[in-house]
């Protein structure tokens, strides 16, 4: 009565701004109580409040069951609230969705249009594959609903159905197609909408609709729909170029006449991306020019307050007086740029004409517009405008007040400048446009290096890696710029300020790596070697990343070596003294590296230090006349043996495959386990050859190790072998020779010293290649498509790229052209980032509509979904017939009917046999107490399953369990509930069948006594039954009745203890005790059945009573010869029989169960299954979730099920 309404809640939240959190959690607590209320008004109100809170991020998945309850209300208001809550909160895996099947099916068939619309709208949000499959047929038939309002909604929801149930598309597509000709424009629009969505991913299927769509295009005036149709045609034309001719006049006239910006834009955009220009020939160019001019007007649009009236012309009212004002910002600039970007791919010249405008847009205050403009600019770059464009881009990186930056009137606001992501993007773009096509556009590399160095100093961006690569690449490739770059790098190295940045998170400190390397590699351009060395030994370096430190160490020794050489020319005593002093200092300072925690740095530093101490040992500290020590003379040759050149991208491919080398053959037969790795087998020959090469590269290092191992061998032997190996390699083109004398400018060095080779790029020489044979050349030619040769325009002197000299000449022009065309317009793409929207429609796109429908393709029509009334009627008829048949059968053969299980059969037989030898009293008691299960009066309402028939009779026949077995006897028992309704005294009938297992001997006497009964009491006095002369293979039966005296302490272990005594011939008496387990299911009432509606009502009324939960899992293997359905049916039957729960309703994938015990304990269950395992042995996993009014009971029931498998 006094619950908060939604308005109260909202007002409350607003009133409690200070401690909102606390207020909401208090409200949530209230809501938790309210949803359990029996009053649907209260419940619906609570759900509405939850939905509101959900918007602020409060989880409401716990209430999903209550949502369903509200959805199932007959009141429209409740229904609406419920469906809204469901639409907002349900996920694909919300399990109560399974309960919605019948509900939604009923609701969409409702005569009240609004009910239907609410349901359809809700469905479009929470449709699951199962729901889609079940509802598909109904929805399709609703396409002919009398109200267009419903029709249009159904059309749209069908798209969702197709997403979840792709088979449905094929089946209902003709109907959907008809909707394109619906009388109501909204329905047509919805159908176009759906087809447009469908055609986006797989347009091929929808080509056949072109005539209808064309008609709509020419006749309709609904701009929204026209836009969609145009978009659709944009997807179709690439597949069917002939469409272009047909469409061209229409679209051209649209472009020229339409007043609606959005339609105009869409036409232009489609014309561009739909490939109209290519297929339209002459007219195409004219059209392209028109488009470009129209786009120009877009870009020029500066009217920031233009009113856009596009959709439904004239419909939009004047909104000046409304509570909300409508600032209409011109969005067309952005759109124009977007289309321009697309036009760039086909008509770069046309776009170039508007360069002025586009460049203006780069400086636009709006980030979106700027990014779009950048896209175009990146594609527009050529040699002439590169520097200008880059300059413009750089101006975005440097704050306006920086003296270096060009102050600009239209300068972007600081917020945009400071966005690090944006700036990193700009830098990536700069690097991209400069480096694309092997620096095709860069004419002045000194300028480029300045740019790169400038970029390093841009704060707050992490682009160090990119810049490092660029600087090193340019340094190696461009000979003429090396001197300049060395100078620049020295500037960076000596910049103390820059070193300070190392602790900043977003500094580009990595560039030091390149700086050190370039200074070391091209040390001949260094002006001041000791100063450089000092920079490299700056104590601040310890903060640098280890990789950079390692490069520092290596380059210290490289620069040092070059220094020695430069000193060598005028070596004298003074120089020597100076030299020794410097060396000592260096060696001392080097200790900072020696202490590095990084192994690589430490190892290199130790190496270098050793070299220094070697030198210091040899070179005397005092004046000596004998000039330069030989050690010093040799050292430079270690590092400056030859010039390092870039390797052409094609170099590896050009290496001819020598005769007799089979690249596909295994070098070593792969281990069996490894062959499974598919990628090993998939490797292309090129890759294989690379592998081969790398093996050889490392073989040198291995050589050293091997030698160490074989140290015991004769010294001479080792030398001999090494020589042999070297000789062998000379002829091997895949061996990378690092000491080719022919190429090395100054080389009088001992070969072995080269083992210290640490130059990061390996040189590939071609001197030793055998003359190639033509066949192999052809072979290699085939495999070069992707790479392109670096063009070598005259002004900058590039380092020549190494390529095998016998390689095929680059005559394949076609390749070149292709590669050029491709690379020229590759626009810059940002890193693809993952999206929160999963692509769920993969299946849908594989649907092929071009194939005619097969005979067997039909919409699923589950019989289980007949209306409950119809179902009930049928079941009654069936039941009557069965009963009749049962009566007839009974009079003839009694066993015939109940041959369902073997054990049961046995019991029956024994009844017959034993009845002869039993006393009259026993007989009568049996007659009274064991009515034939088949003749039990079945309640008129069946469990409502016809799709999968669970045999009621079988379920309610007593379960037979084995109680005891030895060599002589086998004891089987079954328990049956005698009580008929709730509240009766719980009384059970226990049948015990004792079989003489022997086929020869007779059991002389047999006595069985109920000895321990715990919570049970035996009815009657006869505790003991005695039998004499039980023949071979004969069975005797004992029937005892028990009533439950009190609730058991533990439902899981209710036992009745028996004592068994028997004697066979002369053998001594055997005494045996055993316990009969009374399963908790024995107390389930057979009559407690519910139909789905009753079940739902019961749960909605008293759902909160079922507060105790438990679940159990059973797995059933699916044998190859059985179908899944059989096994699942068997599983359901087994579970139903074990738990004695009635199956209330079955939906695909799940079944609901219900049962009530004689004690009045109620159990509701939900059974779900999943199939796992591979093709060969599948397993059906069935999960039974139970809700119950008694904790112990439900636990016991669950454990029964768990014990099944």
């Amino acid at each position, binding site marked *: 009565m006094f619950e908060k309404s939604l308005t109260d809640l909202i007002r409350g939240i*607003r009133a409690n701004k200070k401690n909102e959190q606390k207020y909401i959690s208090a409200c949530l607590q209230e809501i938790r109580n309210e949803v359990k209320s029996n009053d649907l008004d209260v419940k619906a109100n609570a759900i509405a409040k939850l939905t509101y809170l959900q918007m602020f991020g409060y989880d409401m998945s716990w209430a999903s069951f209550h949502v369903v309850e509200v959805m199932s209300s007959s009141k429209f208001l409740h229904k609406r609230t419920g469906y809204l809550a469901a639409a907002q909160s349900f996920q694909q895996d919300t399990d109560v969705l399974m309960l919605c099947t019948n509900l939604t099916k009923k609701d969409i068939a409702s005569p009240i249009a609004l009910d239907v619309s609410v349901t359809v709208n809700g469905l479009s949000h929470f449709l699951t594959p199962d729901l889609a499959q079940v509802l598909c047929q109904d929805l399709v038939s609703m396409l002919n609903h009398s109200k267009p309002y419903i029709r249009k*909604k159904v059309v749209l929801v069908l798209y969702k159905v197709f997403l979840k149930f792709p088979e449905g598309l094929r089946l209902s597509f003709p109907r959907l197609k008809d909707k394109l000709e619906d009388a109501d424009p909204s329905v047509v629009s919805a159908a176009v909408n759906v087809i447009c969505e469908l055609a986006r991913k797989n347009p091929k299927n929808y080509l056949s609709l072109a005539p209808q769509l064309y008609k709509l295009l020419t006749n309709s005036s609904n701009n929204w729909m026209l836009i969609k149709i145009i978009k659709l045609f944009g997807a179709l034309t690439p597949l069917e170029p002939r469409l272009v001719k047909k469409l061209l006049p229409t679209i051209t006239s649209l472009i020229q006449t339409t007043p609606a910006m959005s339609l105009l834009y869409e036409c232009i955009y489609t014309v561009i991306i739909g490939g109209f220009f290519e297929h339209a020939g002459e007219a195409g160019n004219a059209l392209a020019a028109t488009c470009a001019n129209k786009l120009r007007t877009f870009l020029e649009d500066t009217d920031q307050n233009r009113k856009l009236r596009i*959709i439904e012309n004239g419909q939009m009212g004047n909104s000046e007086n409304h509570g909300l004002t409508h600032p209409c910002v011109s969005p067309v600039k952005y759109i124009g740029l977007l289309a321009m970007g697309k036009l760039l791919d086909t008509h770069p010249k046309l776009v170039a004409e508007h360069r002025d405008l586009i460049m203006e847009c780069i400086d636009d205050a709006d980030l979106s517009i700027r990014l779009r403009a950048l896209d175009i600019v990146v594609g527009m770059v050529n040699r002439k405008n590169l520097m200008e464009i880059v300059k413009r881009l750089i101006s975005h990186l440097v704050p306006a007040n920086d003296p270096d930056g060009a102050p600009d009137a239209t300068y972007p606001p600081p917020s945009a400048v400071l966005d690090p992501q944006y700036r990193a993007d700009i830098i990536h773009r700069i690097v991209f446009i400069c480096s694309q096509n092997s620096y095709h556009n860069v004419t002045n590399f000194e300028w480029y290096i300045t740019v790169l160095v400038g970029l390093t100093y841009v704060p707050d961006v992490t682009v160090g890696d990119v810049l490092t690569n660029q600087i090193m690449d340019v340094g190696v490739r461009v000979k003429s710029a090396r001197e300049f770059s060395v100078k620049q790098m020295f500037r960076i190295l000596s910049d103390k300020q820059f070193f300070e940045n190392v602790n900043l998170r977003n500094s580009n400190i990595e560039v030091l790596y390149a700086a050190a390397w370039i200074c070391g590699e091209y040390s001949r351009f260094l002006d001041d070697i000791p100063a450089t060395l000092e920079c490299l030994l700056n104590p601040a370096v310890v903060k640098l990343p280890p990789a950079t430190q390692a490069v520092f160490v290596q380059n210290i020794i490289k620069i040092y070596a070059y220094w020695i050489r430069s000193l060598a020319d005028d070596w004298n005593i003074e120089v020597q003294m100076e030299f020794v002093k410097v060396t000592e200092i260096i060696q001392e300072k080097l200790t900072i590296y020696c202490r590095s925690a990084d192994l690589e740095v430490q190892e290199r530093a130790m190496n270098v230090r050793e070299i220094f101490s070697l030198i210091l040992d040899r070179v005397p500290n005092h004046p000596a006349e004998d000039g330069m020590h030989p050690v010093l003379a040799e050292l430079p040759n270690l590092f400056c043996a030859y010039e390092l050149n870039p390797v052409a991208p094609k170099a590896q491919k050009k290496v001819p495959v020598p005769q007799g080398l089979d690249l596909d053959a295994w070098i070593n037969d792969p281990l069996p386990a490894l062959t499974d790795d598919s990628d090993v087998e998939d490797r292309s020959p090129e890759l294989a050859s690379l592998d081969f090469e790398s093996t050889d590269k490392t073989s040198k290092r291995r050589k050293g190790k091997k030698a160490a191992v074989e140290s015991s061998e004769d010294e001479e032997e080792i030398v001999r072998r090494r020589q042999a190996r070297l000789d062998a390699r000379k002829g091997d083109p895949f061996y990378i020779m690092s000491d080719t004398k022919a190429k090395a400018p100054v080389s009088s060095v001992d070969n072995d010293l080269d083992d210290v080779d640490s130059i990061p790029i390996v040189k590939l020489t071609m001197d030793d290649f055998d003359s190639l044979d033509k066949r192999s050349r052809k072979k290699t030619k085939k495999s070069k498509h992707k790479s392109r040769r670096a063009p070598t325009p005259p002004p900058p002197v590039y380092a020549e790229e190494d390529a095998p000299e016998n390689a095929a000449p680059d005559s394949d022009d076609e390749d070149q052209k292709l590669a050029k065309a491709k690379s020229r317009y590759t626009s810059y793409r940002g890193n693809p980032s993952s999206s929160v929207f999963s692509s769920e429609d993969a299946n849908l796109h594989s649907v092929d509509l071009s194939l005619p429908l097969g005979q067997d393709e039909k919409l699923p029509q589950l019989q289980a979904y007949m209306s409950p009334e119809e179902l009930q009627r049928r079941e009654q008829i069936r039941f009557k017939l069965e009963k009749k048949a049962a009566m007839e059968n009974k009079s003839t053969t009694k066993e015939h009917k109940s041959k369902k299980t073997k054990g049961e059969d046995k019991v029956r037989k024994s009844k017959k046999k034993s009845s002869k030898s039993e006393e009259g009293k026993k007989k009568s008691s049996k007659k009274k107490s064991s009515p034939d299960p088949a003749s039990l009066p079945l309640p008129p309402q069946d469990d409502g399953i016809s799709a999968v028939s669970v045999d009621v009779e079988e379920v309610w026949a007593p379960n037979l369990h084995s109680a005891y077995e030895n060599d002589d006897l086998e004891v089987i028992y079954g328990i049956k509930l005698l009580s008929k309704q709730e509240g009766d005294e719980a009384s059970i009938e226990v049948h015990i069948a004792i079989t003489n297992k022997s086929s020869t001997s007779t059991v002389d006497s047999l006595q069985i006594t109920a000895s321990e009964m715990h919570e049970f009491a035996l009815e009657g006095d006869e505790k003991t039954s005695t039998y004499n002369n039980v023949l071979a293979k004969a069975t005797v039966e004992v029937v005892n009745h028990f009533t439950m005296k009190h609730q058991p302490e533990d439902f899981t272990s209710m036992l009745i203890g028996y004592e068994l005594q028997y004697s066979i011939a002369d053998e001594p008496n055997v005494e045996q005790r055993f316990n009969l387990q009374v399963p908790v299911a024995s107390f389930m009432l057979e009559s407690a059945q519910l139909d789905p509606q009753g079940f739902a009502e019961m749960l909605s009324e008293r759902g909160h009573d079922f507060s105790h939960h438990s679940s159990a899992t059973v797995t059933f293997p699916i044998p190859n010869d059985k179908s899944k359905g059989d096994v699942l049916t068997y599983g359901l039957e087994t579970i139903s029989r074990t738990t004695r729960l009635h199956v209330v309703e079955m939906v695909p994938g799940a079944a609901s169960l219900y049962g009530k015990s004689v004690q009045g304990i109620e159990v509701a269950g939900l059974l779900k299954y999943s199939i796992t395992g591979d093709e060969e042995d599948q397993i059906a996993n069935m999960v039974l979730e139970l809700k119950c009014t008694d904790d112990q009971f439900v636990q016991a029931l669950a454990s029964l099920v768990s014990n099944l498998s």
Partner: protein
Amino acid sequence: MIFNNHGKPRLSKFYQQIDIATQQALIEEIFSLVSKRPDTVCNFLEGSKLLGGKDTRVIYRHYATLYFVFVVDESESELGILDLIQVFVESLDRCFENVCELDLIFHFEEVHHILSEIVQGGMVLETNMTEIVTAIGELNKMKKKNGAISAGSLSLKASETLRSSFRN
């Protein structure tokens, strides 16, 4: 989604099933992107980290204290969506008679229903305002008939009076 100048969501509707934490994160991110932008710049936005992908665009309009934001993929026309926002707002306006933020706050369900008449399951259902308003009118009729005695109408009345008190 709709949120106000302070990033408080006023209405959020997701046409793909996204878990609630991500929903909140999305709202926050988009708000932070959108709110930075001055009114003079264009209404399109991309580069949301969570949304990802070049195809997804954020299209928004700013009305007084509210941002109306649509997130769409490439199959929608940008200008078209801008107009759709306009249609939505004007529909709200007609249904609430001079709509203001408070209307949206207190009739959060209503707004949902109006939106569902325009967009269903992520696809545009109706662009004709007359149709939309008629449909809503019918819903309201139904509601009045149905809920004459229910709590819903009481709360409606309460908010009606509340609203008028705000106006005065």
